[in-house]
């Protein structure tokens, strides 16, 4: 099996919130960050999307030790004064989260960007800054590994020996620079983890299966605008 060197980025944050953008009038939380959010965080470390290689792809795992709901004051950004009254809304959040991202290309660029990010590191709608550590790790090309807490494309073959292959989720993958268009894809994620075994793109030495997610660069969202 071929071995490659990859960059493992571990991001921790005490409180985060990933909103489902389909429900703008309320705050519906997602159980894990969508690929577009992780891509946005990476782009923030690089400074802007034009600093990010277009075909950047990554694999990721995500865990949260707790969850809850809070109240927050919502200040409408309205053109007319009559619609500016602040209201109280529920806000779902996750606590003590760990996001691990594996990048397999442009390692030096990403290592540098994450060590000295251009913009403060945040994850989703966080009221706290996130911390990130990087390390170079060897990965084995191909092979089988454990799904665990990985976010994987739904097209990944499930493990026939278990029924616990994660819940199906529709998540944003990429958003155009003008935010007018978002591409969505179907993923699987087991919030409590799963022992399912996957045929992986890469595997870590600890046996974690890594499946590369679709590219998150805005150009890929724009490319899908075939109708306009």
């Amino acid at each position, binding site marked *: 099996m071929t071995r490659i060197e990859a960059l493992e980025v571990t991001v921790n944050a005490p409180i985060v919130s990933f909103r489902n953008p389909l429900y*703008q009038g309320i705050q519906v939380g997602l159980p894990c960050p969508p690929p577009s959010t992780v891509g946005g965080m990476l782009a923030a470390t690089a400074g802007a999307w034009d600093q990010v290689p277009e075909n950047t792809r990554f694999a990721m795992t995500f865990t949260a030790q707790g969850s809850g709901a809070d109240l927050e004051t919502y200040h409408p950004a*309205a*053109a007319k004064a009559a619609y500016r009254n602040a209201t109280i809304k529920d806000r779902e959040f996750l606590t003590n989260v760990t996001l691990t991202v594996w990048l397999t290309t442009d390692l030096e660029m990403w290592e540098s960007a994450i060590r000295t990010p251009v913009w403060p590191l945040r994850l989703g709608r966080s009221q706290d800054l996130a911390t990130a550590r990087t390390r170079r790790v060897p990965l084995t090309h191909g092979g089988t590994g454990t799904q665990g807490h990985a976010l994987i494309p739904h097209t990944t073959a499930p493990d026939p020996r278990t*029924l616990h292959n994660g819940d199906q989720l529709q998540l944003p993958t990429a958003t155009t620079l*003008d935010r*007018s*268009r978002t591409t*969505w894809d*179907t993923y699987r994620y087991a919030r409590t983890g799963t022992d399912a075994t996957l045929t992986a793109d890469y595997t870590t030495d600890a046996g974690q299966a890594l499946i590369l997610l679709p590219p998150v660069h805005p150009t890929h969202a724009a490319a899908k605008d*075939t109708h306009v």
Partner: protein
Amino acid sequence: MTDHLTQNELRLTPHPLQRAGAYAIAAIAKAAHPEKVTGEQFDQVVQRMIRDLVATSTVAKGQAGWYLLGLSYTLWPNCALHYKSKRTPEGIAAWRSVPPAQAWPGVPCSLCGRPACDWYGNVDIPLGASVEHRNTTAPDHQGTPLCFPCVTSFHALPYAFTAGGGVLYGLHSWDERFMARATSAAVPNNQRHMMVRGDLKKGGGAFPVEFAALRALRWWDKRITAGVQAIQFSNSTRDMKFRVEDMGQPLAEWLRSTASDTHRRTGFRFLARAQATAKVSGLRMLAWRAFNRPDQIPSRASGWLRDQITETGRIPAAVPHLAPLIRTYLTEVLHVLEKDVGHVTTIARRIADVVTADDDKRLKKFVVATRRPNDLKGWLRSQIADWAKKRPAEAANEPFITVPQWRVLFDSGNTSWSARELLFVAVFEELCARGATVTATDETTTDEDFTTLDTNDQEESD
């Protein structure tokens, strides 16, 4: 020309409520799938929905036909129906028509990417932001851009979802065939509500949406490939609500199998009876637990068996049907590991050696001990010597319980709980296999929901 065509071609998007509406349109058009709805059929459904709105617009509260008008306050706040000047056939048609192409905003629909025909807000988009708010809109956008098929899908929600108790409720699944089936079953009911109901009282008994899911699953004759969501929401400006209950695919498939598999079908009646509470019937509690507390389903069933056995000291006739059903739940839904099943089955055989079904006292003591882990530990320790005397010749050198078996039962965290539940049913399966005498169980049920549970009348009537 292309632009015009795309304004009457349905597409499925990532939005569950848009999908539910699109499937409702397909059901009204009698098409197999939203994307099979022709432009002509789509236009006819739009006209039909306008006619339904016009019909309800003049009905007084309490009169038959007011239901849709009442529902509009929950689903479309501040829509044309709520203004005297717009509550006319012309006003309603204007609300539900495609704006002229020259007025289109020139941006893509935020859901499907085709050309949007207008900016929309929470009047038309359930749980959307006000069209006046810019917190989440893209720069220079005057609201959320949608194409006509996508916004019409939202308009069709009253045909897929039922109103009652201040919310709309209905089902969603990413299994496309099941979604089509569940929606096509719901549409005739909701159309009936629109014609005859004059109120928005919460009908349908306890946990109506969860029970509808159970019923839809047991009607479904194909393997289900995704979980099922029970959605309840209100788009009322004053009090937006959104609640989604998820049932995982393994449990959905297991519930489906309780109708399609003859053996499981018999056990299912006992399983449902075991779930009942003083106020809610067994089937409806089962449906609620399937979404909210799936771990309670086997424990309620084994608890019900425990009560029956403790009361009579005999094995009820339900055991040969219910015990295997609980076993399948533990292995197929709660994922008790194969190796743990092997350990538990071995212990169950040992226990069956010492608990003979003809000895009421021994049986009763075992059943009582299974109520608490510490009691079961004590009981197992107390049986070691007894088993040594009784053990069959082929097991002469084997212990009553091994260390790994003990660990499976007591030292494996949460999985130990399911292993102990499995042990309880495995012992009775073993006793029945050895020809234990069972006493008759009253099989009559007072649960009226059984009369409609497995009838396929909705589809047949179509």
